[in-house]
């Protein structure tokens, strides 16, 4: 799951944007919290990883500011070979002492970089945003 913060401006806050996207794209969006008034609003939501890019794009098209809280998703397919480690320019991927591969999501640049994704033999890395 990808966690996103959706920011609605005053101009669009009265439109049923979230429900439209859920219905049009069939994406199950889970709303975790929502603070809305006439001046605008914020929704913290979760979107399934494989549909995240589609949903984010749809929200942005409708004028919503999308703040992605997680830029990289590593699936259970990862067998911790480490092919990605030396490629990461910001040290967001590293080996632990026991050669586990760890991902520091807060350091990751996401699709803005993306050097690791196509180097993954397990195809376990998905970049978001």
């Amino acid at each position, binding site marked *: 799951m990808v966690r996103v913060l959706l920011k609605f401006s005053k101009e669009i806050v009265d439109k049923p944007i979230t429900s439209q996207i859920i219905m049009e794209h069939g994406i199950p969006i889970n709303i975790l919290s929502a603070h809305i008034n006439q001046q605008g609003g914020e929704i913290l939501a979760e979107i399934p990883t494989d549909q995240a890019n589609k949903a984010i794009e749809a929200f942005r098209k409708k004028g919503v500011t999308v703040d992605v809280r997680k830029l990289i998703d590593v699936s259970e397919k990862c*067998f*911790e*070979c*480490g*092919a*990605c*480690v*030396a*490629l990461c320019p910001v040290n967001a991927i590293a*080996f632990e002492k*026991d*050669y*586990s*591969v760890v991902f520091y999501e807060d350091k990751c640049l996401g699709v803005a970089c993306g*050097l690791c994704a*196509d*180097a993954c*033999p*397990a*195809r376990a890395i998905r970049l978001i945003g």
Partner: protein
Amino acid sequence: MKKLVESSGIEVAYKEVDVVTTGTFGAMCSSGAIINLGHADPPIKIQRAWINDVEVCHPGAAVDLYIGATMMSETRPFEYGGGHVIEDLISGKEVELRATAYGTDCYPRTKLETTLTKDDLNQFYLLNFRNCYQRYVCATNSRDETIYTYMGKLLPRFRNATYSGAGELNPLMNDPDYETIGVGTRIFLGGAQGYVIGEGTQHEPGKQLGTIMVRGDCKKMSPEFIQGATYTKYGTTLYVGIGIPIPILNEGLAKKVAIRDEEIFTDIVDYGVPRRERPKLGKVNYEQLKSGRITIKDKEVRVSSLSSLKTAKKIADTLKTWIENGTFYLTAPAEKLPVDTVFKPMKQTKEISFVESIVHEAVTCTEDEEIKTVAQRIINRSVNHIVVVDKEGRLRGIVTSWDITKATAQEYRKLADIIVRHVITTTPDESLEAAARKLAQHNISALPVINQDRRVLGIVTSEDISKLIGR
């Protein structure tokens, strides 16, 4: 064991330790599985077959197929291949089989479509002809562009390096003279018990490049230790987990299994040169490789593995548990593996051509020349490409007749404004095939030929190459 030898000496370690377990988990392309389907009704003598759109090869009599790890899906090439088919079957997934045949009196059927799981197969055996390389090279890339190789993604100008292998944990590194590993040695293979059935292809123990051929029952294996994988723009493969127990039969073996990463050296190799003999840029040991940083040409370069050291350790630990629990028994080899084989290069009856055989003089200019002067040179010398060089003859850029035309139309005044700075180049020792691939890939029509100092030695054009191919 390694620590024990260091702290208490070989004699004590030899007395204390009975067996040392080893492990490795990495991409092993020369792998595959043999399956038997049973007969269809009416029967078919399969000529060609596909599983999940991956062509599977070499039917023997009628319904035996070999799933090669590197065969790629015809609908999803470079993403799904034979390795993934093997993993899916081991995981219990259903796969789709398609087959065609020419039809005979005894096997009349010419087409077949069905679905299968591993339970539907009579035999499903992993049959890998080259596994477990004792050590492998460290790969890097001198080129100006990222390249995608069987050693993974290599960034331009030595910005990263990759390596493979478990170093001191590698099975063959712990028994380099094949005292205990031979035909019939029982091993950990893909999470089950398997066997060494011979030396692997390209086995060259004299250069610490030993390999083994193995066989094991896929139906008992686990997808944790057998996984399909993809190397972008290279192809698909299979990650194989192998562990071998080394019984400490003598003090000599106790000493050999004490080998440490710092004693295992390998070459740093430039995969930017697409030749059989790739330039070696230095030596490095596995301790340095595992540290994540090595030095290439006085520059610190980040390096990471393609094989999983964590899984390698898990395999050695699992094998140890099996032996302690009495569920795994060691075997003495029925026959020794050869220790003197060498890996010869291919005999070629027809030599192929390299850039050096068609390179010709490049028409050049310097950056400070007038556009008009360069335009005249293009006409006088009847060429389409002018290579821009500095005073020392080093490559600075390229200008084509098209760039000059564009400059005239758009009224650019200075040559410097129209020079193409990012130039795709070649070297004299590159094959014509590789040069032709560069031309097609970048949709360009000429490559300046340069040496290591970027001095321009000449130029090759797509016309030169097509003339040669057309001959």
